[in-house]
């Protein structure tokens, strides 16, 4: 199949798991012989390998430091460009459809590049397209827009998505989208979870050598991800005499805040901040750690990190309700907690006290991550979705200039309606 992938960011430029997941799937689809072209925005980081299949001509109008601090685009015009319609990006996508003639257009995160218009153009063309949700994109591209603008693109009642194949990482994520948007995705979704890329062979490993449990956390260092909870739970554990453990925290993010917090809690000698690590390095770290701490926010769409940890036998402690808990079972593959300091500290204490059979749970997790939650399984599902999407709809033989004119009119109208 020829597949045109559209994503706001693409590694090496990335923020989190969404972009990394997109690249992993693109690489896997290419490895299976598909002709994949990625349309994305420029990167300010250098790729470690040539990316001839990546076209970086989209214009990204969000995710600037100022916009991220404000959590929204301030200017009405900027809001339209980021969320509703960016005429250059829409025309660019249409040109690539004309030239590349993909069997299917495969969208990832389209926030910041005028996502509504991109999807609407595909809908207008009746083109085969799929949307892979790793976050609540339909919510993000609708926020702060005038209801008239939403209706213009069919985003007020969900008709925008009528023709799409929806892939969601979790039921939780789709449910959140439907609840916040106020409509149901009539055609439902195919669920493709986060995955592990581990080799199928189970690693040999041990647990809590010399009775000292090694806790680890990795990912963005941020309050949403539970970094503060982890540090406060560690302090609480220290107060409980006789508990011996270590804690390593890896990843970028708000490190100054986290380091200060650890210092104020008197954890300087217990906690080690390891900074950003490559995937290969993290695999080794997980293999020599006993338990992975993931007290993320309840609305976590899925969470790649606990899967990657579990694949190495590192038993995750996870906030109940996070998307990944639809696949990992409490007491079998992981330990579920409420998102509180006390609940996390209690779970850590049970691990340290031998109340959790780390070896059994670790093995179950390693097996799960080599079967249902393995990349090969997920790519096969994605392949099936894309193939059935491509077959379900006949692609238009050629694009009509009217599509460009229509999208231009809609853009101009959106700007006018948003500004008034």
């Amino acid at each position, binding site marked *: 199949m020829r597949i045109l992938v559209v994503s706001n960011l693409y590694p090496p430029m990335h923020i989190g798991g969404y972009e990394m997941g997109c690249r992993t799937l693109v690489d896997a689809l290419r490895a299976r012989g598909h002709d994949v072209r990625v349309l994305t925005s420029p990167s300010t980081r250098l790729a470690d390998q040539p990316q001839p299949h990546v076209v970086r001509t989209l214009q990204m109008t969000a995710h600037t430091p100022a916009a991220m601090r404000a959590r929204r685009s301030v200017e009405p015009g900027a809001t339209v460009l980021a969320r509703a319609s960016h005429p250059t990006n829409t025309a660019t996508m249409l040109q690539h459809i004309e030239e590349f003639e993909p069997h299917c257009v495969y969208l990832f995160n389209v926030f910041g590049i005028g996502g509504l218009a991109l999807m*609407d153009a595909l*809908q*207008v063309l*009746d083109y085969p397209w799929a949307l892979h949700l790793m976050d609540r994109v339909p919510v993000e591209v609708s926020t702060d827009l005038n*209801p*008239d603008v939403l*209706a*213009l693109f*069919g985003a*007020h*009642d969900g*008709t925008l998505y009528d023709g799409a194949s929806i892939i969601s990482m979790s039921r939780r994520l789709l449910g959140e989208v439907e609840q916040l948007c106020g409509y149901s995705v009539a055609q439902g979704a195919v669920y493709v979870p986060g995955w592990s890329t581990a080799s199928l062979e189970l690693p040999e490993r041990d647990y809590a050598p010399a009775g000292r449990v090694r806790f680890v956390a990795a990912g963005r260092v941020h309050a949403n991800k539970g970094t503060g909870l982890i540090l406060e739970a560690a302090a609480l554990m220290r107060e409980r005499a006789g508990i011996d453990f270590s804690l390593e925290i890896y990843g970028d993010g708000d490190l100054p805040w986290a380091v200060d917090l650890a210092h104020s809690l008197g954890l300087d000698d217990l906690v080690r901040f390891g900074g950003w690590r490559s995937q290969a390095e993290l695999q080794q770290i997980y293999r020599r750690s006993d338990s992975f701490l993931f007290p993320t926010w309840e609305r976590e769409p899925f969470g790649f990190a606990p899967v990657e940890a579990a694949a190495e036998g590192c038993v995750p402690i996870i906030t109940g309700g996070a998307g990944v808990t639809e696949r990992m079972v409490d007491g079998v593959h992981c330990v579920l907690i409420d998102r509180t300091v006390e609940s996390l500290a209690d779970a850590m204490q049970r691990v340290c006290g031998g109340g959790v059979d780390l070896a059994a749970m670790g093995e179950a997790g390693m097996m799960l991550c080599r079967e249902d939650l393995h990349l090969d399984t997920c790519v096969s599902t994605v392949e099936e979705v894309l193939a059935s999407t491509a077959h379900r709809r006949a692609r238009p033989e050629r694009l009509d200039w*009217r599509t460009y*004119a*229509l999208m*231009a*009119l*809609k853009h*101009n*109208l959106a700007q*006018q*309606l948003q500004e*008034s």
Partner: protein
Amino acid sequence: MTIAHLTPTSFSSSSVLGGGERYVANVARAVARAATADHVPVDQRIVSLGGERSSVIVEGIRLETLPNDTQRPGPMNAISHHLREALVGADVVHVHQSLTVFGAYATATAASMGIPVVLTDLGGGADENMLAGRGMDLAAAVVSISAYAGALIGSSIMGRHEVILGPVDTETFHPQQADGLRGEGILCVGRILPHKGVDRIVRALPPQLSLTIIGQPYDQPYLDLVKGLARGKDVTFVHDADDEMVRRHYSTSALLVQASTTLDAYGRRVEKPELLGFTPLEAMACGAPVLLAKTASLPELIAGTDAGRLFRDDEELAQALREWAQGTWRPGLSSADVREHVVRTFGLEVAGRRLLEVYQGVLD
């Protein structure tokens, strides 16, 4: 063939009353008439905005009203978030008031659904998204209601362009025996607004003539101005006339005068003052001769006939009225011939057949 007519305001007492609203109703009736005559199966609906959601069938045409969902003020900015639902099943969408926000939104919605769009400018705006933004390129056809109206947007039209004057409802507007003889008074009919130039007629009115002004006042200061000018003259104002009363006046008045202007009583320039003069057409359908300003589309209404007379400015208007009072000017056509001119050129069936050809053409 299912045709959906989209209009921001409907032709009803609860909505705005003007030529634009009357036009849409006439179009639907004309198309129905022509389709019946030519045995073409046609289903029509008129979708208008601004009231409570309703759907009724009148004379075989479904009238659907959708709420105006936008916060933007003004009927020409009306937007329904449920427009898509109302267009399901339509083969052709005719967007009236196309050069407005409403028109742009309706055009975008219909085009998104892959339905061929026919556009008509009935005034109400000059939307930049449709003109400079080239939204009109999306039209499968443009129907202009006069050559004048067509000339205003000619440079923005890429595809098929038809000028179809009318349709005039010659069934409603015709003289009846019970009306009695045509009198001596002259008549002015239309919304009492500055661009209609009512003040010009009152100023030019000679003492021998009486004038009846029929129309709803939409501009109180202007009404006050006109009433001030009428002081001491034989002028009667009627603000609550229904169609039948208007018809009777058309049938019994000696002459209809329309003095629409591009420069109003306050010195303001008026754009697109008269894309199509419905009032003179309806008056002529009732056999009344007309005295018309050489403004916008008005000269087209009597082109090639002696159904009336044109005037260039206030002086020529006054001169024509003086000659009328003295009996030195009368049109060459009889009342019956004046009506025949309208039926033959602008009537329901004639215009309906041409509109039907346009709709069939865009489907081909």
